[in-house]
């Protein structure tokens, strides 16, 4: 038997310079550039299209926000929540309370609602984290129900029938819709950019470690609970912003609508179709869902059955969604996240 040999080239030459770590590649440069161009184009849209189109687009923005935040929670954080509607509702009611009762400018109240949702989610997380996996999921649903049942106690916000956003009554519709649209655009850009930043930060690496192996992550000094809590709160804040946008756009809050579990159904569908655990997936999923909503939602229950069946089939047969089919080896992300070694020796790009 001969002595073991090391195949040539698999071990880097120690004498050479240390390898460079690069973020992103050609696709992400092009991708991010293209997205920035899209945002600029979207910004000038109010001068070019009808109010009806703008209102539709605000709905799309809401979809993108809830898809991205649910994906952050479930796809990156590993926490499947069936109760994000708690914060959508909280954000919507928060906006109405802030602008009608407290008197804050409704457009400024949007980030405020997001902050309130995030703050409320902190004590909630202490309760919710006592559960894991599927029981965590139902637990979040219970919490959403509790939010709803508590909110409808208050006649000040219309109890069971909800209330209208009065502070914008009497303003010019065209102007109001345009401002709502710009507000929505800022929110969606902030949420997407914020998520990209979070994932590409040290916290993002910690998240991936926790997702891969929580015990190993903990023994490497990662505070698993803190990482999860940050993600939980960020997602809640995002959902709160979405809820506030909803209230702003429809000028009405109804408890059974804003606290409905159907929002979760939408989030799940978008993220599953688009691709769980990627940054591009929820964006793709939101676009697909938006297109389906615009064309098929008249079919009512049958439409939801179709959505459900598609989602089930995707989970079983193509679990990485549309983006997983487009970029199966995760080498062509649209965003500059991840860390790659730029050396001549490695034949496979390492991706964090």
């Amino acid at each position: 038997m001969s002595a073991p040999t090391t195949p040539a080239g698999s071990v880097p030459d120690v004498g050479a310079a240390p390898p460079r770590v690069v973020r992103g590649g050609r696709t992400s440069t092009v991708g991010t550039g293209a997205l920035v161009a899209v945002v600029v184009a979207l910004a000038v849209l109010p001068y070019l299209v009808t109010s009806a189109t703008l209102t539709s687009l605000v709905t799309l923005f809401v979809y993108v926000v809830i898809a991205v935040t649910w994906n952050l929670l479930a796809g990156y954080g590993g926490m499947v929540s069936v109760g994000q509607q708690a914060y959508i509702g909280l954000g919507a009611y928060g906006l109405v309370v802030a602008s009608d009762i407290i008197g804050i400018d409704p457009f400024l109240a949007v980030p405020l609602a997001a902050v309130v949702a995030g703050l409320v989610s902190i004590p909630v997380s202490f309760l919710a984290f006592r559960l894991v996996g599927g029981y965590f999921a139902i637990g979040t649903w219970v919490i959403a129900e509790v939010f709803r049942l508590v909110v409808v106690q208050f006649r000040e916000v219309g109890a069971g029938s909800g209330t209208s956003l009065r502070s914008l009554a009497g303003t010019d519709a065209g102007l109001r819709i345009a401002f709502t649209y710009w507000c929505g655009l800022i929110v969606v850009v902030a949420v997407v950019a914020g998520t990209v930043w979070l994932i590409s930060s040290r916290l993002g690496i910690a998240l991936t470690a926790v997702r891969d192996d929580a015990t190993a992550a903990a023994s490497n000094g990662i505070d698993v609970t803190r990482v999860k809590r940050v993600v939980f709160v960020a997602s809640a804040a995002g959902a709160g912003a979405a809820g506030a946008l909803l209230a702003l756009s429809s000028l009405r809050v109804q408890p059974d609508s804003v606290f409905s579990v159907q929002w979760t159904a939408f989030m799940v569908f978008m993220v599953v179709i688009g691709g769980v655990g990627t940054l591009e997936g929820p964006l793709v999923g939101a676009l697909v869902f938006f297109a389906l909503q615009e064309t098929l939602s008249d079919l009512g229950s049958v439409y939801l059955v179709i959505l459900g069946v598609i989602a089930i089939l995707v989970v079983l047969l193509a679990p990485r969604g549309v983006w997983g089919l487009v970029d199966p080896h995760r080498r062509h992300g649209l965003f500059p996240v991840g860390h790659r070694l730029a050396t001549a020796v490695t034949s496979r790009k390492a991706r964090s």
Partner: protein
Amino acid sequence: MTLLNAVVQGLLLGGLYALFATGLSLMFGVMRLVNLAHGEVAVLGAFGSLVLGTALGVNPLLSLLVVVPASAALGYLTQRVVLDRTVGPSPLPSLLVTFGLSIVVQNLLLATFTADQRRLDVGALTTASFRAGDLSIGYLPLAVFTTAVALLAGLSLFLARTSLGRIIRATSDDPQAVRLMGVDAKHVYGIAAAIAFATVALAGVVNGIQTNFTPLSGPLLLIIAFEAVIIGGLGNVWGTLLGGVVLGVAQTVGAWIDPAQQILAGHLVFLLVLALRPQGLLPKMAAT
């Protein structure tokens, strides 16, 4: 109604709640699978009974002879054909698929039956009651409670004493090792799902006799089952009964204080237990 009466009612309701909870906890115990469509199975049972009643004039209690075995078969098939592919280290696929199933079933039922409130009719038995001192006790709730306890006892004995029960417990401990004993783990999963679906469908029919139901009643039943499991403590049948009873009493006492707060009262007690004693009141003891 006196407070004592409310407590007794809650106790009896607890038996039904325990029945709802058993299937959920069994599927989790054996397959580590939380079935988010659990409530929909109960609703399917109720609607199945409704259809048999309107089409063939069958009494709801008699319809159980058809609904229960049919639900068991549905559970076995659903597990083997759909849910088996989701069993694994990550809870994500099973949660997503069962959530999808719940949406599909809810909306299929909506399309077929509309959102009208329904009730299963057992005639005079629905409200018949007797007096015991100051208390007024309904025959039906008492019968349901007794049946629930009997079924839970039966399940507990089945798991503890029979060969198949042992195999189910062994599978929940270590599904890979059990294959090395000549056991087809997938078949065992199917059996567990069949038992789960059968018990929750039974509970669904009984619930449909006592209260109104619609295609959208599933989520609340899932939540009730879940709360009973958590309050009682994971991993044992009698814990689930205790959890059901505590939840039932919380709800009826809440309703006694303010009828509109029945469900909220249950949620609040659940959150209290979660905050103060997250492992539940009777966490897993030695094999029951």
